[in-house]
């Protein structure tokens, strides 16, 4: 059981250069609270696996510190940190049975035979592996193998955090759901800190109560799924989370008005005093833009196609050169593909150099 603090943590795979811009993981400081379910979300190569491996101790950071409950573990080996890790591809020991696999970490630590048996049967019960305990682990399906990998972590009574590195990659879609809800359930029952690395937003948003979005070696936002959706702190978050992603277009912003193509969109907050010389953009999710028949008061656009996602229809439109997605109401129909866009002012955000600007009330 532990709180994990990262203090100015950074890592480079090419030695300790002074230029942190070239680092695989740029300096970050953050706290993971005990018992939290976290997801590290980002595209391939954004540094999320690096961060995970730093926490588990598989790699040693180029700079910064990692604290478990205030105790510095930066230089401790993986064995000495009380963490468990589940990898992308199931790792099982081929020659052993399921039971022996589960007992392996305890045997290595010289735990008493009787205690091992008790723990193994407890964990097997928790993971529904009891009927398979005496089978060879190689004969099982990938999802069962992933459960064994997880079980080897959970079987240790001292385990502080469980790290998952895209654990569902090789699992069939229908079993993914089962396994994910199993993880959720375990998280509630065992009060463990869980950190889950993925590039799949659905996995991240359904699993975690805090999602940490990473981009290019940096943490760009950390917050609840609702926060990420409603108030992306970075244009990347807006674009990466949500399907379709956030609409982002450059605009002239002055006071409570944003100007696009000579058309004025009113804003909820006051944006005087934006940094000069910065690239100013506005971002709005497709869910907060409605399509209406063209009228002089609305930003006019050309419809390219309409995607029916079942619960909602989204139109792909074009405003000048900029592509845009917007919600289509049931009643809407257009003959010539011309339309107007209605913005929900409360959900139009302003970004300076890709970062969210709060604005004054």
């Amino acid at each position, binding site marked *: 059981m532990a709180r994990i603090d990262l203090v100015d943590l950074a890592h480079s795979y090419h030695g300790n250069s002074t230029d942190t811009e070239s680092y695989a993981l740029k300096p970050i400081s953050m706290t993971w609270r005990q018992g939290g379910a976290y997801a590290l979300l980002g595209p391939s190569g954004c540094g999320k696996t690096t961060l995970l491996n730093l926490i*588990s101790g598989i790699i040693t950071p180029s700079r910064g510190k990692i604290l478990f409950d205030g105790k510095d573990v930066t230089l401790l080996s993986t064995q000495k940190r009380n963490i468990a890790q589940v990898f992308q591809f199931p790792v099982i020991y081929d020659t052993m049975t399921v039971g022996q696999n589960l007992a*392996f970490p305890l045997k*290595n630590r010289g735990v008493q035979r009787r205690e091992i048996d008790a723990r193994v049967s407890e964990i097997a019960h928790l993971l529904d592996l009891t009927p398979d305990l005496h089978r060879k682990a190689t004969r099982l399906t990938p999802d069962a193998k992933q459960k064994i990998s997880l079980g080897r972590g959970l079987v240790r009574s001292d385990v502080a955090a469980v790290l998952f590195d895209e654990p569902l990659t090789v699992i069939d879609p229908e079993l993914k759901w089962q396994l994910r809800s199993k993880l959720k359930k375990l998280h509630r029952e065992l009060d463990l800190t869980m950190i889950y690395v993925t590039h799949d937003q659905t996995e991240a948003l359904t699993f975690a109560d805090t999602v940490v979005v990473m981009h290019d070696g940096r943490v760009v936002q950390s917050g609840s799924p609702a926060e990420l959706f409603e108030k992306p702190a970075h244009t990347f978050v807006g674009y990466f989370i949500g399907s379709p992603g956030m609409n982002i277009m450059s605009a002239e912003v002055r006071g409570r008005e944003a100007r696009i193509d000579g058309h004025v969109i009113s804003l909820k907050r006051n944006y005087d005093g934006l940094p000069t010389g910065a690239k100013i953009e506005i971002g709005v999710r497709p869910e907060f833009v409605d399509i209406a028949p063209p009228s002089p008061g609305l930003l006019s656009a050309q419809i390219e196609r309409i995607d029916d996602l079942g619960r909602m229809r989204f139109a792909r439109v074009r405003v000048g050169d900029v592509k845009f997605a917007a919600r289509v109401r049931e009643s809407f129909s257009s003959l010539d593909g011309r339309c107007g866009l209605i913005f929900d002012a409360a959900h139009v955000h302003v970004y300076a150099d890709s970062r969210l600007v709060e604005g004054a009330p």
Partner: protein
Amino acid sequence: MEKTVNQKAWFLVLPVFLVVAFSAIIPLMTVVNYSLQDTFGNNQFFWNGVGWFKELLDPSTDLGGRFFASLWRNLFFSFVILAIEVPLGIVIALSMPRQGWQVAACLVILALPLLIPWNVVGTIWQIFGRPDIGLLGYALNSIGINYNYVSNEFDAWVTVIVMDVWHWTSLVALLCYAGLKSIPDAYYQAAQIDGASRWAVFTAIQLPKMNRVLLIAVLLRFMDSFMIYTEPFVVTGGGPGNSTTFISIELVKIALGQFDLGKAAAMSLVYNLIILIVCWVFYTVMTNAGAGRRVKEGAK
């Protein structure tokens, strides 16, 4: 649809048939023919039935005695070199670097002995071990070890075995290295997290993952050592006495030394049969292991 009858198709098979006939069937049948007859030279042959085979498989006769003696010698030799080369190859593979320029350097050094022609290997060791001018022989004798592979049976065996280990351990090491390289990093990381010792990593991960390549290594080394001829022939010529006379050396002695074509033909057929059987057994074991694996994968 009606089948068209076209006998011309046979001509397409003809080249293959001819090649196989001249490369395998005709030579083999010649040997079978010899094995059933006796000759006193002058191209005169007499029918002998299975006489040579009876004699060959009866250890109390001269021919049978020599055959079984060389067979046991050969099996013992194969057993010894396997017992040395397989563990040694594993140890070498384990201690090789995983990345950097050292990998290429190690691979080249390891591959060198494999590139040397058999009789050159024999010649190298023949000279290397000579007590008068050979580096090894002279050095051993000058530090007081009485080493002479020409007159001492034990020394001759040691020389032949060390030579084979020098020549072929690389093959086992390279195969094992390939097997080790195919293990994903996640296994080592998981083992680290599970607190596994170096030995536990070896027995739980590396050895099981290497078992396929080890099987291939054992098969290759067994067949090769069971058919060994050139190197011991160059070094010891089968001596002193008959102490390092392996089956192939004995066979050549009978066929070319004594010109007993019938005996030699019978012996080479039995020799061939043993190799085929061993080969088949290994092959069955390997494909069964493979099939077992496929069934498992299918179950996923």
